[in-house]
């Protein structure tokens, strides 16, 4: 029995037939098969996802993509998205997949926070003429200073390994598999040149990328893909992935179509099989168990690299973070619910977890209360979209911010949310060789470098305006933030004063 009812098409490419020069470039560009050439004209078929590849590739700007005007009758409760999702599920009976970060409007608190600046009673600093330090250290703080015989601080005497970065930025964990070889190569190259960190994701490290290992953070997830002692010792830090903001409590599932030779070799799994990451680590059912995995990774790397733990921001995040620090983690990453993903069930992506603004502040406060905050580096991620978000996140308590989607956008991504389909027209989230080849590694790397360089300059501008000369003095500096949103209770939870409240 056929039960399908067509889910109406969402986007409509409009071809300006007068401007069109019939070069057919758009047809080659479209990896979703939404355009064809027929009767001497470019014609529109079903399947447009509004990735805008054709729009940008068209030499005469003859293409416009719009949301279909023939949309559902307006309804205040049953939005078109809700109606479409019900229609799709009634067809397939499947769990709806999507990608990128949460696509819901109720969670943006960064936009409700305003920054402070110096006036009269404290001087601002011109960062173009005076030093403003953005160097950032990742790892467990030794808690003491060793001074040599000449009275100088002996940096090598620290018992714990520390990673030094030139900016308080880490490119988050994006595995080879979720993105293409070229995309990962570009991100790693950018991290090396900027001297910041990039996460490898849970898919292991391809042999070609060991040249960047001093700027890489290895991820040990429940699937343990590609994790060997050699790999762990080569990189500069190791992250245990417990969860991801886009899908807290959920595992990973790289479909067999994407497990081609390159991925198979790097993950060390057979060709064409699904790569499944179990939902939990089955060796970790408690903080004590987590301590064991942290310890075995430290033993296995002979205490040469910091070992961190990454969790999704969930409602009890403060207590969990406290346990993680007590379990011996050298750094801690909190990933908020707007964090990105290459594939996640929509229901989890849009509805589970906590915004990073609240989570990072809650963790920072909890660790301070327990006297633990000074021991570790706190990283925060989950839709740090701009330098402004980064600055606010640091002032809410993060030492380092993790950025993924913005780096993708720098490479060409238009956030069309189709990563899970593996047909990325920009050559980023795909394993199809012809599509992956569309991304020029050098160009993409340079664009990522440019973007983060600009962010760091903006960070210095803001710090200078605040009269702060080192990013470490901005960490957790809530006095320089004011809340201006609709819900003063959020300000209380963030421990940020309301706009209009002064220092005293």
């Amino acid at each position, binding site marked *: 029995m056929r039960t399908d009812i067509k889910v109406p098409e*969402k986007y409509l490419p409009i071809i300006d037939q007068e401007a069109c020069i019939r070069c057919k470039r758009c047809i080659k560009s479209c990896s979703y098969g939404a355009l064809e050439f027929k009767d001497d004209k470019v014609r529109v078929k079903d399947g447009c996802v509004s990735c805008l590849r054709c729009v940008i590739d068209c030499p005469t700007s003859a293409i416009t993509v719009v949301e279909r005007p023939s949309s559902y009758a307006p309804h205040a409760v049953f939005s078109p998205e809700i109606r479409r999702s019900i229609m799709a599920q009634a067809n397939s009976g499947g769990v709806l*997949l999507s990608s990128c970060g949460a696509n819901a409007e109720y969670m943006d608190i960064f936009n409700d926070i305003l920054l402070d600046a110096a006036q009269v009673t404290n001087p601002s600093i011109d960062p173009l003429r005076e030093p403003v330090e953005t160097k950032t250290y990742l790892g467990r703080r030794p808690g003491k200073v060793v001074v040599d015989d000449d009275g100088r601080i002996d940096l090598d005497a620290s018992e714990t390994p520390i990673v030094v970065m030139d900016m308080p930025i880490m490119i988050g964990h994006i595995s080879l598999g979720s993105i293409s070889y070229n995309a990962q190569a570009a991100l790693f190259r950018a991290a090396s040149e900027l001297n910041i960190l990039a996460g490898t994701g849970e898919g292991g490290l391809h042999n070609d990328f060991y040249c960047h290992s001093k700027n890489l953070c290895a991820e040990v997830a429940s699937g343990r893909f590609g994790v060997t002692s050699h790999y762990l010792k080569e990189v500069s830090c190791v992250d245990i992935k417990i969860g991801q903001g886009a899908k807290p409590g959920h595992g990973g599932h790289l479909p067999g179509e994407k497990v081609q030779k390159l991925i198979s070799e790097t993950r060390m*799994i057979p060709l064409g099989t699904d790569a499944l990451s179990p939902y939990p680590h089955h060796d970790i059912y408690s903080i004590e168990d987590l301590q064991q995995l942290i310890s075995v990774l430290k033993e296995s790397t002979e205490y040469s690299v910091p070992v961190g733990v990454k969790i999704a921001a969930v409602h009890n995040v403060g207590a969990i973070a406290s346990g993680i620090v007590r379990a011996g983690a050298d750094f801690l990453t909190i990933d908020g619910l707007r964090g990105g993903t290459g594939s996640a*069930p929509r229901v989890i992506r849009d509805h589970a977890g906590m915004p990073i603004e609240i989570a990072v502040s809650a963790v920072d406060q909890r660790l301070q209360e327990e006297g633990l905050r000074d021991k570790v580096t706190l990283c925060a991620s989950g839709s740090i979209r701009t330098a402004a978000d980064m600055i606010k996140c640091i002032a809410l308590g993060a030492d380092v911010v993790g950025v993924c989607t913005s780096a993708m956008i720098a490479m060409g991504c238009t956030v069309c949310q189709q990563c*899970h389909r593996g047909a990325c027209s920009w050559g980023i989230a795909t394993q199809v060789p012809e599509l992956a080849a569309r991304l020029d590694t050098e160009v993409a790397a340079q664009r990522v470098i440019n973007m983060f360089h600009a962010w760091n300059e903006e960070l210095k501008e803001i710090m200078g305006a605040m009269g702060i000369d080192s990013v470490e003095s901005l960490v957790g500096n809530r006095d320089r933030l004011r809340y201006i949103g609709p819900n003063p209770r959020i300000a209380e939870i963030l421990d940020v004063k309301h706009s209009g409240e002064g220092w005293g």
Partner: protein
Amino acid sequence: MSDDNSTVVIDAGERDRLGHPLDYRELNRRIRKTLSEGQERIVLMNVMGQRYIASATGGTRMRIEIHGTPGNDLGAFLNGGTLEVFGNAQDVTANTMNGGRIVVHGNSGDITGLAARGGTLLVKGNSGYRVGIHIKEFEGVGPSLVIGGFVNDYVGEYMAGGTIFVMGLGCTSSPVGLNVGAGMHGGRILVRGGLDEHQLGPGACLAELDEKDAAVVEGLMSQYEAAFAATIDRSVPVLKVMPLDSRPFRGHYDSTTI
């Protein structure tokens, strides 16, 4: 410390000033130091639950004898050589083992062989829950986990390759628990003494041995007999649990643009 030129003995029961046995960090540091000096035969005496023993080690000629009871995570990330335990091993033995051989003259605990991708583990007695979870293989090479007695529930969960052989020696009923091979999408679980359909987890099915399986069974039995000076009755039938599909979640998801 050396009792002769070829073997180094380390007393893991040595007490510090406070009367505590040797800390695992110190024990592992001594093991690594000994190995780095080119001594590849080490005997650990009076082991008292020290964790992470010999993690990330593994010269091909390395041989570490462990007398007493090692703690959790014995031989994690092992790359080669042999660890032989004269006693029981605890949880997460052979965590993410890459290669080499671990022989346990006793029982091993839960999640033995977690995410291993190579090497051989022989356990004389029984093992706990979730043995061989997410073991995998690459280019035809995978781990072999052999348990002489019985295992508990969820053996071979998420299994993506390799071989688990549960021998059921001394068992009067099926030597495996429930949810055998839950979510498996590669590899094989061999059960001597058999199991019923109801013991299978989702994604797993029962099959008769083919010639290749029979050769693997015989090879692993011989290894077991040699390691533990045992004799295994060849007349007890062996059944195979294998995946229904290498793509168990095909069709579970819907990618419609919403």
